[in-house]
Structures are given as structure tokens and as C-alpha cells.
């Protein structure tokens, strides 16, 4: 919250020159269902820290958490400043007709388009935390056991319903042969012989999404080598790995957002990178490799919201890193100070003195040629003059 003093030029050396962060006003936070509490509260923390009032719209899909949020927030927070609005698509649409000073949306790109459209009417700035297919390249010399454990954790956490879950794997045929047994081993360690009975494996959030995923798996022409079973009553889908996946496979078309891991083999790292670059920029990009040049090659030749080498998801836990997408995976970022900045206006402030009015003559008309050379000298950046 402190004013941030900035470099001045010679013409403004004696003035107070700083950036002051101010609240924007009333912020709307629309949260998704996959981490329904976290993705309501995390942006809210930033909005409150920046001094705004907040209207929260939790997801109706995660109905139990929606009720809890609606009940508890008014009990702990000032009800005038922080309100919870419940409802579905119609209520959200009505909410969006109002004017906000910032809209923070986490969810899908389809809905994001209509949010952006609604925001444009009031010239409301937005932050869009969207998704995409987060690729996971496994290449070169690699400790397959460690890689498999981290990959399995990141993929099947929350049954794959994470915006930054590794969506699919790209690797060579040789790596695949070493990877598969390691994946099976890791799955057994984490979820036991029968994942259905394991208390640590999540379920799919709704019947609609369960059906979507089961149908997606059905349409795939790949081979299921792990899992594949499911239970409709319980919205359960086993941790599933599919190989022999082609570029045109159903599993390679849309963001999976479920516990199904397709593995596509590529002949070379370049082909893998090309494949990624032909598609929309994802929210996260993962590379597993013990070879730094491989990691650097992927980093330098791709774009994504965030990048993590040799692990999954954990880059999100570092509040120093801005968390957000680029291109189709989103606009803006938050976490830590980035959240504070997102919900603040950075107001440029210059407090001039009254003295040196004669100095100002340089800029007043009538203009002569020598005005310019003096002005050029005094308005260039301070590092040219070390005396002051």
C-alpha cells in the first residue's frame, strides 16, 4: 500500500514523484466448481487487500460449497462491503448487467467471451483465469520413477479437475516403455490396488461431467492400458491411461478436466514443440527431463501462462509468481502481490513545487530553437546526471 517513489528527470528533480495504489471500487468475483472454496477466497483476499468491496458469485455446480459460502461469509465479513449472490446462468447474466469496477472470472473460455462482452459495455477491466490443454513433455534422460510420481500426483489430484492438471503427455516410444510401469507403480502407491475404495481419490463433480468424460473416452481410438472403469451412481472414473493416441483423437481435442491421461508419442522434441505451438497457448506447460538443454529449448520455443520443469501444479503455490494465462488460457494474473495489483489502480502522482517558475519558461510559447536543446537535456532520464 505504500507509495512507490520512482526515478525523476532533471526537470522534476525537486518534485514528489510516486505511484500510489488505490482501490478500484466494487469487484465481482465469479468462481468455478473445481476448487470452489479456494477460487472464491484467493481472489477475494487480493480484492480486500486492495481496499475494494466485493460481490461473490460462487459456482452453483458445487452446490454444497455454494451454500456454505453463502452462510459463512456474512457471519465473518462486513455484510455491506462483501456480498454473496447465489444462482445459475440467469442470475449471473443479471449480475453482469450491473456496473463493476473489475470482474474476476475463473472458468471456461466460452463463458469468458460473454463476460468480456458484458464488461465492454461498462468498460470494466477483467481478469480471466481460463484453461486449456496443459501439455506435459517427457524427453531426454529422465528419472522416470520420480517423474511418474509427480505426474500422477498432478494429474489425478482432484480426479484431474484442475485447470493446471497435465492434460496429456508427449514422449518418445522408448520413454513410454519405461514410463508405463512407473505410472502403474505410482498409482498403486497413492490410490491402492482398488482406487474405487481409496478415500483420497476424488469423484467427478456432476453427472453431466461424468457423462461427458465417459463419452470422450468412448470416442477415443487409443488403447486403455490402466483403469478405464467407471461407476455412474458414484460419479467415479478410475485413474485411466490411454496410449496409441493420434493427433486427431477425441481426447486431444478439448480440455479433458478428468482422470484420463492420453499419451501421444512423438519422434523428436521439435515435433513435440511444434505440436504444442500449433494449438492454443495453455495455462501451464510441463517438461520432465534431467537435461537442462531440453528444458530450456521447450521454455524458449513455447508460450504458456506458467511453466514448470520436473513437477506439476506446484508453481501455483509460489505467491511470488503471477498466476494466470495468456491467449486462450486467460488474461491477467493474481496470487500474492499480483492479486493486490490486479485489484488496484496504479495512480501516477506528481507533486510539483511552486519554485522554479522561471525554469518553466523553456516550455512556454513563443518557441525558439534553443528551447528544445535545453528541454531535451532536462527531460532525459536521471541516470545521465549523477550529481543529484
Amino acid at each position, binding site marked *: 500500500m505504500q507509495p512507490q517513489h*520512482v526515478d*525523476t528527470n532533471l526537470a522534476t528533480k525537486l518534485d514528489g*514523484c510516486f505511484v*500510489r495504489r*488505490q482501490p*478500484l*471500487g466494487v469487484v465481482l468475483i465469479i468462481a468455478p466448481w473445481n476448487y470452489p472454496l479456494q477460487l472464491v477466497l484467493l481472489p477475494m483476499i487480493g480484492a480486500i487487500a486492495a481496499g475494494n468491496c466485493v460481490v461473490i458469485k460462487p459456482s452453483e455446480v458445487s452446490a454444497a460449497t455454494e451454500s456454505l459460502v453463502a452462510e459463512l461469509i456474512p457471519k465473518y465479513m462486513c455484510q455491506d462491503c462483501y456480498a454473496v449472490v447465489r444462482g445459475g446462468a440467469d442470475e449471473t447474466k443479471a449480475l453482469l448487467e450491473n456496473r463493476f*469496477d473489475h470482474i474476476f472470472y475463473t472458468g471456461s473460455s466460452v463463458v*469468458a467471451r*460473454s463476460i*468480456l462482452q458484458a464488461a*465492454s*459495455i461498462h468498460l470494466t477491466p477483467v481478469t*480471466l483465469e*481460463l484453461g486449456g490443454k496443459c501439455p506435459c513433455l517427457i524427453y531426454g534422460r*529422465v*528419472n522416470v520413477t*520420480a517423474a511418474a*510420481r509427480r505426474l500422477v500426483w498432478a494429474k489425478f489430484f482432484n480426479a484431474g479437475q484442475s485447470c493446471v492438471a497435465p492434460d496429456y503427455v508427449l514422449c518418445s516410444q522408448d520413454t513410454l516403455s519405461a514410463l508405463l510401469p512407473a505410472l502403474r507403480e505410482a498409482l498403486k502407491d*497413492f490410490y491402492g490396488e482398488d482406487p474405487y475404495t*481409496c478415500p*483420497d481419490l476424488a469423484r467427478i463433480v456432476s453427472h453431466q461431467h461424468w457423462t461427458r468424460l465417459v463419452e470422450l473416452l468412448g470416442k477415443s481410438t487409443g488403447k486403455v492400458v490402466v483403469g478405464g472403469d467407471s461407476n455412474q451412481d458414484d460419479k467415479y472414473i478410475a485413474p485411466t491411461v490411454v496410449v496409441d493416441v493420434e493427433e486427431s483423437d477425441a481426447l486431444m481435442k478439448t480440455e479433458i478436466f478428468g482422470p484420463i491421461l492420453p499419451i501421444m508419442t512423438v519422434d523428436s522434441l521439435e515435433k513435440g514443440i511444434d505440436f504444442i505451438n500449433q494449438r492454443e497457448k495453455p495455462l501451464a506447460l510441463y517438461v*520432465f527431463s*534431467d537435461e537442462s538443454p531440453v*528444458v530450456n529449448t521447450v*521454455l524458449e520455443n513455447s*508460450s*504458456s*501462462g*506458467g*511453466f514448470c*520443469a*520436473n513437477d506439476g501444479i*506446484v*508453481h501455483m*503455490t*509460489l505467491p*511470488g*509468481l*503471477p498466476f494466470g494465462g*495468456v*491467449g486462450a488460457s486467460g*488474461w491477467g494474473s493474481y496470487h500474492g502481490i499480483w492479486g493486490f495489483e490486479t485489484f488496484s*489502480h*496504479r*495512480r*501516477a*502522482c*506528481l*507533486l*510539483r513545487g511552486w519554485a522554479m517558475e522561471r525554469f518553466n519558461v523553456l516550455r*512556454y*510559447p*513563443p*518557441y*525558439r530553437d534553443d528551447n*528544445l536543446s535545453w*528541454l531535451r537535456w532536462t*527531460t532525459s*532520464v536521471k541516470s545521465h546526471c549523477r550529481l543529484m
Partner: protein
Amino acid sequence: MSREQQAVVRARRAFETGRSKPLEHRIRQLKNLQRLFTERQKEIADAIKKDLNKSEVGTQLYETLGLEGEISLAIRKLKEWMAPRPVEKNLLTLSDTVYIQPEPLGVVLIIGAWNYPWAVTIQPLIGAIAAGNAAVVKPSEVCVHTSKVMEELLPVYIDKELYPVITGGVPETQELLSQRFDHIFYTGNSTVGRLIMGAAAKHLTPVTLELGGKSPCYIDKDCDISIACRRVTWGKYTNCGQTCIAPDYILCEPSMQDRIIEEVKKSIKEFYTENPKTCPDYGRIINQRHFRRIMALMEDSTTAVGGENDESDCYIAPTVLRDVKREAKVMQEEIFGPLLPIISVSGLDEAIKFINQGEKPLALYVFTPDDKVIKRMRDETSSGGLLANDCLIHYSISSLPFGGVGNSGMGCYHGKFSFDQLSHLRGCLIKKLKMEGVNSMRYPPHTPQKLGWARFFILKNLDLGWLGRMALLAALVVAAAVMLQNYFL
């Protein structure tokens, strides 16, 4: 394929070759741009004279001097701006590499305005080039001569595939907007700003909108009115009031009005002579449509100074309007012309209330010797920028972010802010496949003990307090002593 589509496709292909990314390329392009301004001053000034009647010195002062400074700054600092930016780590990632890597976005669309055509069209371009993007430049068709010069000169100096110039009016702009860009940078008014943002929604394209508004100017009764009025006069009538951050109207106590009118009149004479129409340093309204628009604004107010005009020359004299009411026509929209309304308020409280009833402006000016007054203005209002005791010049400080809030815009630029605005700041975590044991606390099966460890490692900010820090220091000293002892024995 339309001309616009072709240009965008070519720019994207050029970007995909990767040639806009290396530091050497960016610096070379920026240096070429610099040469454009040193070598072609005459052509630039001639065109501006025809469009806005600015003198040659005026053109350099207000258009190109700032750009030369920004280009020099970018050239000098680019390596630093492009470098990975390390960030704070938690205990879990202590042995990892964590940083933010700035990256180009891709193809940027820059839509310029007509009032300072070089400044507001090229300044975003500097940021786009510095950030490693390709950029399609669409100068404003309203400044007819300048946009022609831009179309001719830019391809001579900078890469014409990466940075094409597309001239044209509304249909050409709409055609451009139907293409996909990775960022759109627009300078202009809020009506068109809404349309641009709406068009960008289709491709989820992020935008920077540098808009305008009515920038209020509060003159406190205790200030040096003579100096204040000189600065306001300069700020207002430069470029004939056609400046997005021009002081739009004055708020002051009724007793000050006469004095202010007198001082502004004096300053007008000092800057623009008895007959501003013949003064080479006084500009013209850009075209007859805007001339008529501005003249209509004066209709229901009383002229205290000026008022002379000549439609055939698009000339409106520096004008002051007195006893203006809130409902007057001149207060219903951004003036963007040489009319300075004075509105009476009973004091600071009413001024703040008046300002807050309007949309958040791009700039807010307050003239006062009293820090308390400045503090109240600062704390009780919002605006793109705030300037006490002068006008316009916060624009020239590259280390200040220049941009609006609310109706006056979104995003900001100048200096490093331009670079950051047109980059993607990618969060990067580079780990090794070692120390796998540490990870076990996060893997299933999940237990409360594991949660305890996770809490410790992730929420690393242990506030030990003074006693704790002393204890830690003592422990470290003991450990060091033990180690040294072992080493020497």
C-alpha cells in the same frame, strides 16, 4: 483475402519465424526508428503543420522529443527488462530456480489517435518492438497528412512485414478488428473503446485502452494564482486543447473567478500574442466537424475571454467561460478544444463531491500550497494520474505508469510499463528430479501429519519475533563454533 487480412497473416508468419525476439533485432529496429526522427524531422513537421497547425518547434517538443527519449530508454534498458526476474521462494522450492520470464505476446494491433499522432501511435509501437512482438499500426485517418507520412516512412526504416502500417477509416478498422490479435492497444474515446473491447471479446484478446474524460482542475484560494494560471493556460491551450490530459475545466471559489480570468488572459497574451490567429505557436482544430462540435458547446455559457472563431480556418481563439453551471452543454462531454469553463464551488468539500459525481478522469489537477489539500484530493478521488501544481508534465516521466481507470481507460504504458504491458510475464519454476523424498508429504494417502509438514513448508513466513531471532542466532553461533572446533581439531 483483404489487404488487412494479408498484412496480419504476413505479420504473424514473420513473428513465427522468431526473428522479432532476439535482443539484437529489437535494438536494431529501435535504432532505425530513432533515425527516422533525426533524419525526417522536416517531413514530419510539415505534415503536422497541415493537420494541426503546430510549429516545427512545437512538433518536436510535443511529439518527437518524448519519443526520442523513450527509444533511448528502451535501447539502454532492454537487456535488463528482458532478463528473467527472480522471485521469492518458499522452503519447499528453496533449491529450485524460480523466476518470471517476460515473453512476446505475438501480433499486436496499435490504433492511433489524431491529436498527437506520432506520440500516441509510435509510443506503443516502441513497447511492442521492445517486447519482441510484431505490430500492425493503424494511424488515425483524421490526421490525413500525418498518416500518409507514417505509411511512407515507417516501412523505409523498420521491418515492413513485422510492423506493417495500414491506413484507412472505419471500414478498414473494422476489417482489422475481425482478425485475431494477441493484444489491441487503442488510444481514443470511450465510445469507440467499448466497441474495440467488444470486438476483442470474440478472440478473448486483451486490450489496453487509453481513453479520456473531463480532467478537473481545482485551484485553491491560497495558491499563487499568477503561477497557477500560467501553468493551466499552457496545459489547456497547447495543441488548441486537443490533449487527452488537458485541464478540462476549473473548479474554484466564487471570489477567485475574476482574478483567474485576468491571469489566464495575461498568460494567453504572453504565449500567443494579442492575436493568436497569427501566432505560429497556436494550433487549429483538427477539422470542421470538431470545430462545429466545440462551438456548439459554448452556446449556453458566458464568454469571458476569447470566443473569436473562423470556420474556414478551423480557428477558435483561446476562450474562457465564466459562471458555468453543471448542466451547461460544455460540461456534458470532454471538451477537447480551447474552451476553459470556470465552475464555482464553495470549497474543497464541494469540489471533491463534484469530481466524484463524474466519471473517473484521465488526469486530475490540484493547485495549492497546502499539503493537506493535496492529501485529501489524493485520498478522496480517483483518476488515471494526479498532478499537483502543474499540468500535463507527468506524461513526460517514463517511470510513471500512464493510463486511465474506469471510463478513462484500462492498462498503462510509458517506459518499462510499455514493455510489460505488451509482454506475457510467464511464471517459471525449474525443479530437478531429485529430493523425491520431500514430496511424499503431498502424495496420497493423505494424513494429518503430512498436512502439518505441508503447512510448515508452504507457509514459510515464520514470525519468530525478537526473542526467536536471538535464539536462532545463538543456535547458529553454537553450530558454527562446533563446526570450527571440529575443523581445527
